[in-house]
């Protein structure tokens, strides 16, 4: 059941280039892997549309969001102090079967939904990439949850130098067949997903993407968040946000 709930910002911490926000909601929002929520505030009428966010952690009324200030709403959020009240709408989107073990590949802030997904798994491989060390989040926590973690950065400031897709492909070359039977989930910038799509094709992976698109209602009503797929337009909000990689057309 979808609901609208107020939430108070309880804690805000800087995590490299990101902010980790801990909200306490009036009503628990039982988000499942793959799902998202919409965030808005009463005062921000200048920002007319709510914004879709993946949770990074949910426990009862506690909700954590990992946010990179890039646009109007995220920059506004970055300035908010504890005690600030926001409005949350959710859970939205389809939940997914994650499997006990799997492979997760995150680029930049794309870590957020995958980190959340990891709470529903027993372990697996987790490839994390970013521009530099300030864009690598959650490595120790993921290790303690039983994931083998591979870090890469564009500038080599932590982990392997280069794109996360390079690190992943190297792994595939070294250990062909190790991923057999495992689902692979990826979230990141479009260029990265394009490369992932190629890798998925070459190595015949069971590959899924978390996608985003500018969104209106989040509930299939406005048809605003359409993406191109091999089966025509689909809506990120109700057909996704997780899609089969071989289904989507990335421009």
């Amino acid at each position, binding site marked *: 059941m979808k609901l609208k709930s107020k939430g108070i910002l309880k804690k805000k911490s800087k995590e490299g280039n990101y902010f980790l926000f801990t909200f306490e909601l009036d009503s628990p929002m039982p988000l499942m892997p793959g799902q998202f929520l919409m965030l808005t505030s009463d005062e921000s009428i200048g920002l007319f549309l709510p914004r879709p966010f993946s949770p990074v952690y949910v426990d009862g009324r506690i909700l954590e969001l990992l946010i990179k200030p890039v646009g109007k709403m995220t920059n506004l959020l970055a300035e908010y102090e504890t005690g600030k009240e926001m409005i949350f709408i959710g859970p939205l989107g389809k939940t997914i079967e994650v499997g006990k073990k799997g492979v997760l590949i995150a680029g930049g802030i794309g870590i957020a939904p995958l980190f959340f997904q990891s709470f529903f798994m027993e372990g697996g491989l987790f490839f994390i990439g970013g521009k530099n060390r300030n864009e690598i989040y959650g490595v120790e926590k993921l290790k303690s949850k039983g994931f083998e973690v591979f870090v890469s950065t564009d500038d080599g400031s932590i982990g392997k130098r280069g794109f996360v897709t390079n690190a992943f492909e190297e792994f595939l070359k070294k250990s062909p067949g190790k991923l057999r039977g495992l689902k692979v989930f990826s979230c990141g910038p479009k260029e990265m997903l394009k490369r992932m799509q190629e890798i998925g094709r070459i190595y015949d992976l069971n590959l899924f993407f978390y996608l985003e698109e500018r969104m209106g209602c989040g509930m299939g009503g406005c*048809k605003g968040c359409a993406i191109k797929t091999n089966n025509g337009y689909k809506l990120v909000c109700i057909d996704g946000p997780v899609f089969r990689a071989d289904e989507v057309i990335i421009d």
Partner: protein
Amino acid sequence: MINLSISIGSLKLKNPIMLASGVWEIQLSEMFDFSILGAVVLKGVNLKGKIGNLPPRIVETPCGMLNSIGLENPGTDKLISNINDYKALNVPIIANIFGNSADEYGEVARRLLNYVDGFEINISCPNVKESGIIFGRDPGSAFDITKKVRNSIGNKPLIVKLTPDSDKILEVAKAAEDGGADAISSSNTFTGLAIDIETFKPMLGGLSGGLSGPAIKPLSIYRVWTLSKQIGIPIIGIGGIISPEDAIEYFIAGASAVQIGSGLFRNPTLPVEVVEGLIKYLEKRHINSINNIIGKLEV
């Protein structure tokens, strides 16, 4: 007990709060009980359906948003096959219909006749080339389409949804009235353009889009006010409602009902708040009927 009921042709609504076309789907009914509403208008439908416009389809603009959805819909027969889902909402349902010709409008209406409680003719979509707004700028077409649909549906309630982007709004409204409309929806979105200054490209895949949200509220209220003095059928006000007070402004301007549109996105329980807020407003002033504020602007 406050009387909130209003009539659109033969349809009596328990209150004047409606959901606009193209902003909601069944999923929204998880957020609140639709039976508190006067009526809901379904997503626009034509005979064969449309795949919609190239993404990106929406972009935020100051106090509003531009959309270029392109009337994505599965077609009339598919809507009919799903109609029980809408009927289960326990609220009068109004089909929003469009087509390439007066004949198509008439045919869509004929097929839907036994499945819906009323019709809203869309002659005002700014985001499709071959139908929609062209008709809404031409009184002759507006008359022909309205009459054709009227002939298809007998005495079922018939609303015509206008475009605000025309220098012939009044003529088109009158043509709709003459063609047999029971009410006018005023109005659809305003055509607008947003540009990405980095790429020099439009922000929307469909180039221009329709502007909605609080940015257009005063423009739309002004149109409702001017139209209400000139035509004899009820007007349904649409545009930028995000609070009960916004709806009340529309009533005072001359709207007999209002539709809530993109304000739903930031607040999916807005319709409940508008119904409750309207009742509170009237109670506080000891006004016992919505009719006592409709068109009561003092000038």
